[in-house]
């Protein structure tokens, strides 16, 4: 029953701290602040909860990112994971979801080799708050050739061979059984993340974090970074600003209501 779990997390710019540099057309470095992608907190928490529900395995955190991304791995330690791994190499820069999911799959294989264990479950978040694609989880499952389910809102049951999960659909809930090893992408509804403990914070401070480059994970150079990416960003722009609108006045609440309804009618929204 114990599960060895890898949770994939990413350090991303905080939503709202990102803008375009009008000179270069690139993302402006000014005012940008980084943190763990907000969705990833739920993935991390689920990894910790599953370890508590089915003790005996290890819950590990894995990220790919710049040197500064080490911060989120320390945060994962503070919350209670048993080990962290940092895929960090300039050769990874510019990876799209195709290359990223490949690199993560190689990282997971390397963790198995390094720790002499089999990973039973990989947990990703539904998406990140920067790319917003939600493609890396399913793509990673394809590289690993594991079954996967996205939009998971509950892990109901875990046996030696499978997991029973609930998937949030637009019209209700699908219940699926998925054989181990498997990958799930989780939504916010799945849990409420804990805060790091004091003891955890101490451990996080002291931890030495392994950093693996492309050759450590035996990555095929043709599949990583810009060279390995298939989708390129041709152009970035700021979305058109919304023009400030009309204030609906009116002496009484009834008058305001009438103007509101008239406006909707004018715009053919009724």
């Amino acid at each position, binding site marked *: 029953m114990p599960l060895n779990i890898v949770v994939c997390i990413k350090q991303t710019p905080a939503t*709202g701290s990102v803008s375009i540099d009008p000179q270069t057309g690139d993302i402006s470095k000014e005012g940008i602040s980084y943190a763990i992608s*907000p969705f990833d907190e739920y993935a991390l928490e689920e990894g910790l909860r599953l370890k508590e529900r089915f003790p005996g395995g290890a819950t590990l955190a894995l990220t790919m990112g710049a040197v500064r991304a080490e911060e989120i791995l320390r945060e994962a330690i503070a919350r209670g994971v048993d080990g962290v791994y940092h895929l960090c190499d300039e050769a990874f820069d510019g990876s799209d979801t195709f290359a990223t999911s490949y690199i993560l799959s190689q990282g997971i294989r390397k963790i198995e080799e390094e720790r002499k264990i089999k990973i039973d479950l990989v947990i990703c978040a539904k998406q990140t708050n920067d790319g917003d694609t939600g493609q890396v989880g399913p793509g990673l499952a394809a590289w690993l050739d594991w079954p996967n389910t996205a939009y998971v809102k509950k892990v109901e049951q875990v046996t030696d061979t499978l997991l029973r999960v609930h998937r949030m659909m*637009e019209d209700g809930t699908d219940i*699926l059984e998925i054989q181990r090893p498997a990958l799930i992408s989780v939504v916010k509804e799945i849990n409420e993340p804990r805060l790091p403990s004091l003891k955890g914070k101490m451990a996080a401070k002291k931890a030495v974090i392994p950093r693996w480059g492309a050759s450590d994970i035996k990555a095929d150079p043709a599949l990583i970074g810009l060279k390995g990416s298939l*989708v390129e960003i041709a*152009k970035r722009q*700021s979305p058109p600003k919304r023009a400030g609108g009309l204030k609906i006045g009116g002496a009484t609440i009834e008058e305001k209501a009438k103007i509101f309804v008239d406006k909707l009618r004018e715009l053919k929204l009724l």
Partner: protein
Amino acid sequence: MSNQDLSAYSGIWCVGEVRHGKLAPTIFEILTAGGQIAAALGQKLSVVLIGSGLGPWTKEVIEAGADQVYLIDHSSLEQFVDEAYAKALTDLVNQEKPRALFLPASTIGRSLAGRAAVMLKTGAAADLTDLSAASGSNGFEKGTLLATRPSYGGNILATLVNTRSRPEIYTIRPMVFPRSPKDSTRTGVVRNITVDPATWNLRTKFIAFQAESSNEIDIGSADKIVSGGRGLGKAEGFETVRSLAKALSAAVGASRAAVDSGWIPYKHQVGITGRTVRPKLYVACGVSGQVQHLAGMGQSEVIVAINKDPECPMMKLASFSIEADLYEFIPAAVKELQKHQS
């Protein structure tokens, strides 16, 4: 990475979603988007349906613009299982070699696109809000697909190109493209694809579906949404929000603050950790408009803000701002709407 012969790939595919015996209307939006591209490239427009009992839908999608319909119809494909659908789709792609695949940016479409892209060793981009084929005059080779999508919570619009692998895979945000018009005189070819999922080594088993108990409209496909936020002050506030939603035939949305307070289930949450919507009308009741919420609804066509605080961000960006106590304003508005209906 690419050592593919890209020129061998031709045809535009729109992948539809059939769930519980219903064809999701997103296919008609995708047929608009894909139809433009097929016309610009002079290529065939096809629809792919995966599921069970698909026959009834062929006529509809042909009338809506498909030249060809691929049916992957099998009793064991009735429910969406990532592995099974990805296998069915990628086998057909490998056999037919289309230029591009368009799927809805729904739970199913987004799950399927991510897995299928890696299986096909091709690139995918999610949640497009704009799409065109380059004319050859703006620095891109003629016929290059220019796919635009919001990222960083809607703060940046990125235009993506894939010149390196085929088929290109894209998911398209619902409610962005208009539905393609029907023409009952249109004809098309139906291709029945035989599959044997028993031989696929599937490791996922569908167990059950639990329908949503209410008959509420889902925010993902709603063209009008009425949302409640912290300003409601209490769970009962959603009864007031619902009354306005009902009068407008709108879905009910919520801010994270309202969801985290336990006033309404998570599936109603709009914003960065919730869902992204783009309705024609978004009415924000007591939603102050934090960046995280705006990321999920900032592209709505018309935004109405009802709030006591005229200085909050939502009031500043709304198309119409109404400074009022929502518990006074909403009943008055509902009354006025009922007058309009009778």
